[in-house]
C-alpha cells in the first residue's frame, strides 16, 4: 500500500485532478445578505475566477430556494449581474471554450449567461451544475453541449493541469505541483528504502571514515615530526639516536597509513560502486514490475519515452543520492568538526585566521550553484531543441530535397547550433570565474597561516609547542586547511543534489504509487471455456468521467455472430471493444460474457479467451515464429505453420532467407503493412479465441494483398464471435449484423440490407458518401 503523502488531496486515478471547490466565505455571505428576501435560504454558493463577459476577476454564483443570482464586486459593494428565478428555469447548460466555460440558465425566453470560469474551477462548477439541475422544478439531467468528445480529447493532450492543492500549474505527470510536494516526506521515503541496504552502507561508511582519518592524522604526525623528531636543541650522539628513532617511527607510521589507505580505498571504491549498481537495479526492477501491473489507461496517458526515462535516468540519480550523498553529508560534517577542533585546540587565534574565509567560500559556492543551474538548464534546452531539429529534418530528407530547402535547413541548424555553443561558453565562463575565485579565497587562508603564523613562530621564545606556535604547528595547519575546504564545498552543494534527488524521487514514486486501476475483484473466478455470447447492458463510460464517450449502450451478440461496428470517428467504437476486453471498466451498466459480468472473473482468464487484431499490428523483437506464437509460447511448429497458412502468410515467410527464423520488430527485417497484418492475423488464429476483436487497418494495400488479407480474415472470423470495427465494405457485407454508433449512442442496428433500405438512415448516409467518393475515383481512372 503506498503511503499517503500528507497534505495533498487524494486524486482520482483517471485523467485530470479535481481542484478543491472554492466555497464562499462568511464575509461574502454577509455582504450579499441585504439582497436576499425574507425567508430566502441560500442553498449553494461558489466563487468563480472570471467575470462575464470576459475578464479575470471574482464573481459569485448564489442559488437560493427561489432563484439563482450572480454577484460581482463593484466599488467595494457587490452588485447583481444576473438573476433568474428557479421556477422560470428549464435547464442549466454548460458551454465549453478553450480554457474557460460558461454556465447559462435556459428559460422559455432564451438563455441567460450566469457565470464564467477557467479550467481551474471546472470540477467545482460541474458539481454545482449537477446540484442546480436537481433544484429545478423539472429536475432532469440534460446533456452537455456537443463539445463532449473533442473537449475530452483536448483535456487528455494538455501538458499542465491545475494542482489539487493550490490550483497552480502542474505538469501532467505529477500528482501535486512542485511547490506543494512535501520534500521532507519524499526524502524520508528514500531513506527508508535505503534501510534494506543497511549492512553494506554501514560497511562503506566505516571504511570511508577510516579513509578520512587516514587523511587527517598525517597532518598531526607532521607536527610531531617537525617539532620533536627533527628539532635538535643539543647535538650529541645519544640524543641523535633518540631522534633517529623518532624519525623512523613517524615515517614508518606515515608509510603504514599510506598503505592502509590505498588498500582500504580500493576496497571501499569497489564496494560503493557495486552497492550503487545494486540499488539502481533494485529500483529498475521495482518500477518495471509495477509498470506491468498498471492498466492500459496509464499507458494511454504517458508517452513511452517518458516511462523509459523514469526507469533508466531517474534511477541513476537516486542511486547517487542513496549511496553517495547520504554518506558524504555525514562524513563531511564530522570531518569539518574534527579539523576545527584540532585547529582550535592547537592555537585558537591561528585557527580563526585559517577558517575565516570559510563563510565566504560557502557564499560564493551557493550563489554560483544557483546561477549555473539556470545557465545549464538554458544550455540543456538549446541542446534539446537542436536535437529535435535534427530528428525532425533528417527523416524528411526527401521532402527537403524535393522542395530545394537545403539552404534554409542549413541556416536553421546553424542558428540552433550556435545558440547551443553560446550557452555552453557562458557556462564555461561562469565556471572559470567561480573556480578561480574560490581558489583565491582558499589561498588567502594559506597566506594568512604563513603570514600571521610565521609572525607567531618568530615570537615564540622557546620554539616549543607549549609556549606558542612552532613550525610544526604551522605545517600541520597548512595540511589541515587543505583537507577542510573541499568537504565544505561539497556540503554547500548538497542542497542542489538533494533537490535533484527529490525531483527524481518524486517521479519514481509517482510511478510506484499509481494504483493499477484494473484489478481482479477479491474472489474473482476463473472463466472457463466460453460459448461467446456478449452483452452490453446500459453501459456508459468516459475516459474523463465528466465527458461520457458511451451513453447507455445496450446490445446482445450471440455466439459465433459477426458484428460490424460502424459510425463516424469518435463515436465510441474503439471504446466499446476496450470495455469488452476489460481494458477499462464501465462507469455504469454491465458488460456480460456468457451471462457473467466481466468484473466477476479474473482478467487473465477473460483475456485468454479474447483475440485481437489491431489497426497497427505490433511485432515484438523476435523471430516470425516467436511473434505468431506470442499468445501461446509452447505451441508446436506445426500449429504455427498452420496458422500462418490460414492467414496467407506462409508463402511470404518462406521467401525470406531465414524463413520463420527471420528476426522482425525494432531492429529486424522490415515487413510491409500487409505482411504485418497477416502475421497479426496468424497470431490470432493460433490463439483460437472464442471472441475476436478486429480493428481494421485503414491503410491501403495493393489489390492482390488486399484479397489475401480478406481471405485470411474470413478464415479467422469463421465460427468466432467477432466485433469488427469495419472500414472495408466487404467486411460489413459479411457481418451478420451492424451496430451503428453516433456520439456514443447506439442509433441503428440490423443487417446490411435492412440499414441500407432506411431512407434517412445514418448508415445509409455514410454509405452514400463513400459511394460518391469511389465513383469519382472510378471515373478518374
Amino acid at each position: 500500500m503506498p503511503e499517503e503523502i500528507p497534505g495533498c488531496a487524494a486524486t482520482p486515478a483517471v485523467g485530470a485532478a479535481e481542484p478543491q471547490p472554492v466555497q464562499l466565505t462568511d464575509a461574502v455571505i454577509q455582504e450579499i445578505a441585504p439582497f436576499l428576501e425574507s425567508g430566502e435560504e441560500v442553498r449553494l454558493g461558489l466563487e468563480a475566477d472570471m467575470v462575464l463577459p470576459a475578464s479575470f476577476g471574482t464573481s459569485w454564483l448564489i442559488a437560493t430556494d427561489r432563484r439563482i443570482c450572480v454577484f460581482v464586486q463593484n466599488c467595494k459593494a457587490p452588485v447583481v449581474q444576473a438573476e433568474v428565478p428557479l421556477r422560470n428555469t428549464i435547464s442549466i447548460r454548460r458551454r465549453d471554450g478553450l480554457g474557460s466555460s460558461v454556465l447559462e440558465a435556459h428559460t422559455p425566453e432564451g438563455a441567460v449567461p450566469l457565470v464564467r470560469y477557467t479550467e481551474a474551477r471546472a470540477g467545482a462548477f460541474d458539481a454545482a451544475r449537477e446540484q442546480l439541475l436537481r433544484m429545478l422544478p423539472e429536475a432532469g439531467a440534460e446533456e452537455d453541449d456537443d463539445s463532449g468528445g473533442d473537449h475530452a480529447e483536448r483535456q487528455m493532450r494538455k501538458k499542465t493541469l491545475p494542482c489539487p492543492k493550490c490550483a497552480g500549474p502542474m505538469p501532467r505527470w505529477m500528482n501535486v505541483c512542485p511547490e506543494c510536494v512535501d520534500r521532507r516526506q519524499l526524502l524520508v521515503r528514500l531513506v527508508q528504502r535505503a534501510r534494506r541496504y543497511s549492512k553494506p552502507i554501514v560497511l562503506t561508511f566505516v571504511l570511508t571514515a577510516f579513509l578520512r582519518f587516514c587523511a587527517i592524522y598525517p597532518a598531526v604526525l607532521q607536527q610531531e615530526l617537525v617539532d620533536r623528531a627533527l628539532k635538535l636543541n643539543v647535538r650529541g650522539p645519544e640524543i641523535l639516536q633518540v631522534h633517529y628513532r623518532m624519525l623512523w617511527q613517524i615515517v614508518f607510521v606515515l608509510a603504514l597509513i599510506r598503505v592502509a589507505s590505498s588498500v582500504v580505498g580500493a576496497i571501499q571504491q569497489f564496494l560503493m560502486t557495486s552497492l550503487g549498481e545494486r540499488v539502481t537495479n533494485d529500483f529498475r526492477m521495482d518500477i518495471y514490475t509495477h509498470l506491468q501491473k498498471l492498466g492500459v489507461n496509464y499507458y494511454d496517458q504517458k508517452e513511452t519515452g517518458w516511462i523509459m526515462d523514469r526507469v533508466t535516468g531517474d534511477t541513476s540519480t537516486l542511486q547517487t543520492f542513496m549511496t553517495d550523498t547520504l554518506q558524504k553529508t555525514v562524513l563531511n560534517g564530522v570531518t569539518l568538526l574534527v579539523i576545527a577542533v584540532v585547529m582550535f585546540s592547537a592555537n585558537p587565534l591561528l585557527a580563526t585566521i585559517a577558517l575565516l574565509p570559510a563563510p565566504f567560500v560557502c557564499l560564493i559556492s551557493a550563489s554560483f550553484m544557483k546561477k549555473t543551474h539556470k545557465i545549464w538548464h538554458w544550455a540543456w534546452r538549446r541542446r534539446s531543441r537542436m536535437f529535435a531539429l535534427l530528428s525532425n529534418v533528417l527523416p524528411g530528407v526527401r521532402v527537403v530535397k524535393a522542395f530545394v530547402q537545403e539552404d534554409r535547413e542549413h541556416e536553421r541548424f546553424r542558428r540552433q547550433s550556435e545558440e547551443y555553443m553560446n550557452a555552453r561558453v557562458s557556462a564555461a565562463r561562469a565556471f572559470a570565474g567561480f573556480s578561480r575565485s574560490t581558489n583565491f579565497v582558499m589561498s588567502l587562508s594559506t597566506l594568512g597561516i604563513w603570514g600571521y603564523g610565521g609572525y607567531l613562530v618568530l615570537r615564540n621564545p622557546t620554539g616549543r609547542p607549549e609556549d606558542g606556535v612552532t613550525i610544526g604547528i604551522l605545517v600541520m595547519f597548512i595540511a589541515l586547511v587543505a583537507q577542510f575546504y573541499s568537504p565544505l564545498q561539497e556540503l554547500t552543494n548538497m542542497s542542489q543534489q538533494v533537490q535533484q534527488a527529490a525531483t527524481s524521487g518524486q517521479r519514481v514514486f509517482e510511478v510506484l504509487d499509481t494504483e493499477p486501476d484494473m484489478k481482479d475483484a477479491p474472489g474473482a473466478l476463473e472463466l472457463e471455456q466460453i460459448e461467446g455470447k456478449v452483452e452490453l447492458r446500459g453501459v456508459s463510460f468516459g475516459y474523463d468521467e465528466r465527458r461520457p464517450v458511451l451513453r447507455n449502450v445496450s446490445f446482445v451478440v450471440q455466439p459465433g455472430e459477426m458484428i460490424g461496428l460502424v459510425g463516424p470517428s469518435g463515436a465510441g467504437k474503439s471504446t466499446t471493444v476496450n470495455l469488452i476486453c476489460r481494458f477499462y471498466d464501465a462507469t455504469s451498466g454491465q458488460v456480460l460474457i456468457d451471462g457473467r459480468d466481466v468484473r466477476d472473473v479474473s482478467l487473465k482468464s477473460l483475456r485468454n479467451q479474447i483475440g485481437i487484431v489491431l489497426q497497427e499490428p505490433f511485432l515484438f523483437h523476435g523471430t516470425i515464429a516467436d511473434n505468431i506464437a506470442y499468445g501461446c509460447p509452447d505451441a508446436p511448429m506445426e500449429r504455427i505453420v498452420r496458422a500462418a497458412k490460414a492467414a496467407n502468410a506462409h508463402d511470404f515467410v518462406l521467401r525470406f532467407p531465414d524463413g520463420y527464423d527471420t528476426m522482425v520488430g525494432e531492429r529486424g527485417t522490415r515487413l510491409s503493412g500487409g505482411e504485418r497484418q497477416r502475421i497479426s492475423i496468424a497470431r490470432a488464429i493460433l490463439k483460437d479465441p472464442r471472441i475476436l476483436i478486429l480493428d481494421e487497418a485503414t491503410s491501403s494495400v495493393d489489390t492482390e494483398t488486399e484479397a489475401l488479407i480478406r481471405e485470411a480474415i474470413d478464415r479467422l472470423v469463421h465460427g468466432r464471435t467477432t466485433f469488427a470495427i469495419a472500414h472495408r465494405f466487404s467486411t460489413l457485407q459479411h457481418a451478420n449484423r451492424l451496430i451503428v454508433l453516433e456520439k456514443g449512442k447506439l442509433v441503428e442496428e440490423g443487417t446490411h440490407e435492412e440499414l441500407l433500405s432506411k431512407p434517412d438512415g445514418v448508415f445509409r448516409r455514410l454509405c452514400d458518401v463513400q459511394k460518391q467518393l469511389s465513383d469519382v475515383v472510378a471515373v478518374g481512372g
Partner: protein
Amino acid sequence: MDAVDTGNRSKGDLRLLEPRNLRLRTDAYGRMHLEIGIEERYGPVRAVRCLPLTKPDRFISLQDEEGEEIGIIPEVSQLDGESRRVLEDDLALYYLKARVTAIRKVETKNGIITWELETDLGPKTAHVRDRQNIRPMPDGRIILTDIHDARYEIPVGDALDERSRDWLMIEI
C-alpha cells in the same frame, strides 16, 4: 497419416507429408523429383527450410515450379536413405552455411565489420554490415550473415580456441 486427397484441399490448409510415403530422386539435370504414394508425381521441385537457423532438419517445404507449396516434410530423418541424401544435397546447394573453426581477426571500418575466418569450407574473409547480422542463437551459436547473404555459423564458445574467443567477446 496423410490421405491422398489433394483435390479437396483448400488453399489455406497445411499438408504434412508422410516421410515414409515419399520418394525423392534427381533427374539427369540434377533437379529433384517427388513421388508421393503411387499416384502423385511432381517435378522439378524445390526444397525450402522453414527454420533454417534453429531447426534445419525439420519442416522442409516442397514447392513446385510455380512456387506453390506441395507439402511440408516434418522430419527429414524419417526419409529413406536415398531420398534423404537427395534432399540434403539439394538443400546444401541452396543454403550456403559454413561452420567457423577459427577467427583470425575482426576489424570494423566505416560500418562494415570484416571477419577473417577459418571454416570447414576453407578460409574466408566475410564482410558483415550492421550489428543485426551478427545474430546470437538461443543455444549459444552465433550466425553471421555477410553482404552476399552467405551464412557462417560460429559454434558455442568452448569449441573455439582462445584467440578466437577473445575476438568474439569484443564483437558480441
